[in-house]
């Protein structure tokens, strides 16, 4: 194309710029971009070109779906690490005002926020002129039932199962986001001047005897503070670690669950659950993804076949005229 322009210029009176080169013309640049002639690819979706896509989707999705489905169904065997959850239903932890009723600054150990919590915590900000630590509705409504699991032995004796408290919260939450107020004093000193949330029995520095799991970095507390996305949810309560490779973590047998009932749920017509589960590479048991993959893969494959037929018929019917139109 550039050639043509040059040829034209010659006919029409020399190059656009006189030899001096000083004359400024308003002639636009003849570049591919400015003339909108960039090399381009113009795909058109027709049965012929699209066919492979559908088959590929089908061929990829169906195996994936089967894989997920199988994995998900295998989860029931209680082997490996067993996760102990408590579940609540109809508890709207995602309520707009509830979600905001916290002070991350305070939870992060900011001394000023500790004594002067954010306004977002209202009306759980101060109690009897003392700042509440941790403030806000979320902390106030923390789940405080205690669950204990026992294996019923041969002689009906109860053998307690070791439930691990640590490692149930996100590492970053425990180590970065949640921090106790700074200092080397005992926790009680560091929380001095604050008061416990209204609903709590004990102040925050007495949640656990272990210094590493006490105060704001108590993992039960951290888990609760990570508000659930949906009204029916479960939260990780304890870990049951496998002892060795040979035995299942929880062998078949009778178990005894001891619940210390503290947490009322009738106000929101809720239910409480305890779930024991293992986790595969893709999380807990949920057959949905597998089924979805298989379904979509199949549909896609089917559509591919339909298009194949269409393409075949179309080509036959239109080969008398030109193919493209």
């Amino acid at each position, binding site marked *: 194309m550039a050639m043509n322009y040059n040829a034209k210029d010659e006919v029409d009176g020399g190059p656009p710029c006189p030899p001096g080169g000083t004359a400024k013309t308003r002639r636009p640049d003849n570049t591919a971009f400015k003339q909108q002639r960039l090399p381009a690819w113009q795909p058109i979706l027709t049965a012929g070109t699209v066919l492979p896509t559908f088959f590929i989707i089908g061929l990829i999705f169906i195996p994936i779906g089967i894989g997920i489905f199988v994995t998900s169904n295998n989860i029931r065997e209680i082997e490996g690490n067993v996760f102990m959850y408590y579940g609540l239903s109809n508890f709207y932890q995602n309520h707009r005002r509830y979600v905001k009723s916290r002070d*991350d600054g305070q939870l992060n150990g900011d001394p000023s926020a500790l004594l002067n919590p954010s306004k977002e915590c209202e009306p759980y900000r101060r109690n009897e002129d003392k700042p509440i630590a941790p403030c806000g509705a979320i902390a106030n409504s923390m789940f405080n039932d205690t669950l204990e699991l026992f294996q019923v032995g041969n002689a009906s004796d109860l053998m307690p199962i070791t439930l691990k408290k640590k490692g149930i919260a996100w590492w970053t939450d425990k180590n970065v986001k949640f921090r106790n107020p700074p200092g080397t004093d005992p926790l009680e000193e560091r929380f001095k001047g604050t008061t416990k949330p209204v609903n709590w029995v004990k102040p925050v520095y007495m949640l656990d005897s272990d210094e590493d799991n006490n105060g704001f970095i108590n993992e039960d507390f951290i888990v609760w503070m990570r508000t659930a996305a949906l009204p029916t949810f479960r939260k990780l309560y304890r870990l049951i670690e496998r002892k060795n490779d040979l035995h299942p973590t929880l062998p078949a047998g009778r178990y005894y669950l001891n619940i210390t009932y503290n947490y009322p749920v009738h106000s929101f017509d809720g239910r409480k659950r305890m779930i024991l589960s293992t986790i595969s590479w893709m999380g807990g048991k949920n057959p949905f993804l597998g089924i979805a993959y298989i379904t979509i893969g199949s549909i896609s494959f089917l559509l591919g076949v339909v298009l194949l037929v269409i393409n075949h018929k179309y080509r036959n019917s239109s080969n008398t005229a030109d193919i493209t139109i």
Partner: protein
Amino acid sequence: MRKEGKKRRKRKEDKKRVVVSNLLFERWAHKENPNRHYRGNQIKTSKYTVLSFIPKNIFEQLHRFANFYFVGIVVLNFIPVLNAFQPEVSVIPICIILAVTAIKDAWEDLRRYKSDKVINSRECLVYSRKEQSYVQKCWKDVRVGDFIQMQCNEIIPADILLLFSSDPSGVCHLETANLDGETNLKQRRVVKGFSQQEVQFQPEHFHNTIVCEKPNNHLNKFKGYMEHPDQTRTGFGSESLLLRGCTIRNTEVAVGIVIYTGHETKAMLNNSGPRYKRSQIERRMNRDIFSCIGILFLMCLIGAVGHGLWNGTFTEHPPFDVPDAKGNYLPLALGGFYMFLTMIILLQILIPISLYVSIELVKLGQVFFLHNDLDLYDEETDLSIQCRALNITEDLGQIQYIFSDKTGTLTENKMVFRRCTIMGHEYSHQENAKRLETPKELDSDSEEWTQYRCLSFPARRDQGPAAMRGQGGSQPLRRSQSARVPIQGHSRQRSMGRCEISQPSVAFSSSIEKDVTPDKNLLSKVRDGALWLETLSDGRTPKPSLATASSIADFFLALTICNSVMVSTTTEPRQRVTMPPSTKALGTSLEKIQQLFHRLKLSSLSQSFSSTAPSDMDLGESLGANIPTTDSEERDDGSVCSGGYSTDGGYKSSTWEQGDILEAGPGASLEEVLQAPALSLAGPELCYEAESPDEAALVHAAHAYSFTLVSRTPEQVTVRLPQGTCLTFDVLCTLEFDSVRKRMSVVVRHPLTGEIIVYTKGADCVIMDLLEDPGCMTDSDVEKKMRKIRARTQRHLDLYARDGLRTLCIAKKVLSEEDFRRWASFRREAEASLNNRDELLMETAQHLENQLTLLGATGIEDRLQEGVPDTIAALREAGIQLWVLTGDKQETAVNIAYACRLLDQTDTVYSINTENQETCDSILNLALEEVKQCHGPLKPGGKLSGFRLPSATPPPTSGAAAPDVGLVIDGKTLNAIFQGKLEEKFLELTRYCRSVLCCRFTPLQKSMLVKLVRDRLRAMTLSIGDGANDVSMIQAADIGIGISGQEGMQAVMSSDFAISRFRHLKKLLLVHGHWCYSRLARMVVYYFYKNVCYVSLLFWYQFFCGFSGSTMIDYWQLIFFNLFFTSLPPLVFGVLDKDISMETLLALPELYKSGQNSECYNLLTFWISMADAFYQSLVCFFIPYLTYKDSDIDVFTFGTPINTISLATILLHQAMEMKTWTIIHGLVLAGSFLMYFAVSLAYNAICVTCNSPTNPYWVMEGQLSDPTFYLVCFLTPAVALLPRYFFLTLQGTYGKSPILRAQKIDRLPVDKRELEIQSWRSRQRPATIPGEAHPTNHLGSPTSGQSFRSSTPKNLSPAERRYKEDWVLPGERCSRDHTRDDPYSGDSWAKFSSGEHLLLEPSRTMASGQTNSNWPFSRGSHRRSQSSLTI
């Protein structure tokens, strides 16, 4: 003095401005100066100052409804009960939007400020009493009442009343190019009483008081008077006012007093800002925004009600129901209401906040590409398209009606003298016609040309070589013209005051206009006439046998004198020739005389000169040809005035050879011979500066017959006669041309006879009515002769008009001294009056211009612009109805219409010319009935859902059987239609018409018609024109296009787009219009989709959070999503996407119809995309929901995959919408996606507590290490897009829309593509019409030009053959190369239509004859139908 000052101040109150000299007050305190109340000369076009920018800009931006809406929502968000987001954060988007706009505004304002500063600090000379001389001052320091001295080529700093000019006659010349683009010089006169100054003007002696109008914006209206110290008054008008921004030319020094300054100058008052129009897409968009508001309200209502219901299910307050700060809970209803407002805040993005900004940016991009299109660039004027309205680019793609001016728009407005009739004798000027065709013909196809000429004019064969010489010579001339330095300061600045000093140029004097080849027959008679004039000087009474000769002499004298043409030289600065040039002969060098002798000798030897006295002009020209140095010099100058005498010299001498020369006067002595060339040496340097092209053409024509206008002053005109003698006429009065009178007159005193003669020139219809009544004649012989002359002249005029020539009648009248004196005093009275001066002047003109004697008439050709027929054909094919509205005569207009293929020979043409309403009604009924018979009724409902052209719905009978219909009406008929309320019928008839031609329209009627079509048919209209008379039409239409041609800049100033050539319209509409429309339309639809799709996600979540207005996505991410991650791809899409390539669009104009029918963006596409958006958002929400149901997922961890999925879906959706993928598209899409991850990762890693109270800390990182996330992200977009993908595939496979077919054609290799396009076109226009009968219908001929030629029947003339090939060309011209290589294809048309009218006639009748035999319904030729309907 003090008392006087007080009086002044009092008088300031009324409607006058009083100005006195500042010098009187220079030593006094400032407050004593009565002029101090007037504003200074400083201009300020910038809107803001540093301090006022922020408040003022924000205030202005809030006038936009959208901005106001979003600010309102932000304010709502600050109410604690309602806030859905952190209030501080929710301010961000609107701030960014406002900031982007503010930055744009600030940048524009800064540019204005800078240019203001440059202008304000320009320097000029102001008189200072202290220095007793003129001192340098800045423009901004000039005050009202200052005396300013201006030099040649200086720009005038303010509106100044001219008091002194170095020109002895008190004239100062102005170039107003900066004001109106007109490059011809205008005269300004010193105020009366100041003109006779021998010495330099003394400002200190100026004690007069000037009283004039308050500042107003009428450029050409100004009046006032000057009160002398002795209480006498002198009036003055706009002819003494020097306007700011103009340039002084041809005058060494001018002095004046400042009257208006700065913003009060007429130029500044005239300078309105850019125009704001709302495009159709924007109007439709606003409608859909209301739909969105409806959806939004519905959602919010659901939220409010849901919230109430949900709250009602609890008997006591659950722990997650947080009371307010005081521990109180809201009552249910109030809670619901608050929730409603909260939901509005939450879902606000449903109304796309960034859509307006995005559209503006996209349009800027589109305008950028428009500006940069090489095809819309005109080399000659060095102008590309100018987009003056930035916001209606997409309307270019939806035009249904084009209203076009004829002169200067379809035609070049380069007037060429073609033929004339004198005293009833027609002089056809065959040679001249030949010459007009030659140069271009030679360039394109010389061989065929020769062949053609031999066939049609065997008699001319012997002259062939001579003609060829002439042609050969004119080639380099053409070249020099096209290579000339670009001129015409079409400055695009807003301010009139800003002007660059542009090179002066002379309008209306291209070579084609200058050279006129005289008619041999007439030439001989002219000699007679000239001789007769000579005899006058001898004092002898003219012989009666020489009556014709005298008329001819009069005719040419009238051509030469009766105009306002200025004579100047080409030297820089242009000097006006005001002295008779005889004195210049002294300067002739010896060398030249020697050369002349040499040549004389040679020619007398080699050529058979029968006379000793050759024409001076002739000699001069041949002399000129022999002096290469002068010649090349002039060519280097690049001046258009370096006339073609060198080229024509050879040609003319060969003409003389034929022995056509008569005997020259016996008194031709050697002296005269010597002097003559000297005179003509000066001659070629003469430049004619005309106000209108017609005038220039006539003067050049007279020049060709050796009646040369040598000089002109307001008082005197000097004409050189063929014999070389110069006659100086005293100009007693000049009645300028105006559009009401349609004529101009000059009153001169004949130097030889002493008679007072009125020469009048004007439109034939006017002049014919003003002629003296032959019945009054005493002599019956004379009476008979006069009647005969009038009848014959009228016949010739009709003939000219049929040929598309512009006609002017020339008449004269001899006044007696007594009559003139009476009239002159009357005239003076009228001039002096201040009040109803215009009416009085008009009256005096009418008193003078009557009882005229007809001398003759001229036919001037206005050549069709290059590529006009091709463009019109393409636009027509694109389904655009083209109407031509012109002030010209009906015959002229009809013929131009045929020439540019607006009408076809086979068309049925209805002409309606009536003033009577009833007649008009019955004609309309008749025509409608007949048309309906042929075409079948129109499809109903067209008026409601966008008007569809009848051609789009072909009648159920056989496709092309019915002939197309054309309609011709005139201005009177339109009046009848409007008065008789016949608009409906008229419009109904026009809807059947292929084209409508409106003649004799006034500017007001033009705009009335445009408004009628725009409002009644609700059609998209476009007006295109070039002159001041088109301004109202341009402003009335949806899109106004101005052609920056020769007639000044008024049209351009009022237009939305300015192009330099009519043919640019083709690419502008068919390619850019289509692109802009389809890009923007699809972008808007996409934007709606995008926002609805995304916002719905939040809505679905409300069902799972107790309708509490909670979001699962962090607010920052929400903002980023809309502002950054998904905003760039639609922008790129809107600027760069091409659904169909330029070549295909040009080759298949039919594709334009998709824009006319609003196929890309209408109610259906909007709701389909809405439905799709809801579906996709459902998928994007519920697949993650089902996946994460009953797990320990937290809010943001749940939201992140949803966010990711919807981003992927939205971007992939965009990818499917894109028809063209360039590297930019790919990069932007991929970049957006990657940026999302990068920003999210960074934000989620850094923000531990930054966004209190909720932080998405480490969420993204957590998700990226979770396989489920990938599985969900992989699955969901596939599910969401599968239906659309499948649907698009089916559409792509089975779809029959032209757009889709064109896309498929685009993908083919080049050679195959052309084949496909041709077969498409042939199918589009089935060849039912046999080629012999209708040569014009071979539009879609599948054969190439070569093979077609071989199949052409032998009986067609070569001209027609060429003409056919042109028809085949459009198919091939699809590619840029072809268009470029064949620039003259359009011109063969002009030739065909105008030059070879003799050839055309038979073919036309033949066509019509066969038409009639083929179709009983057809009305055949245009003339036949006209007679049947004209009443």
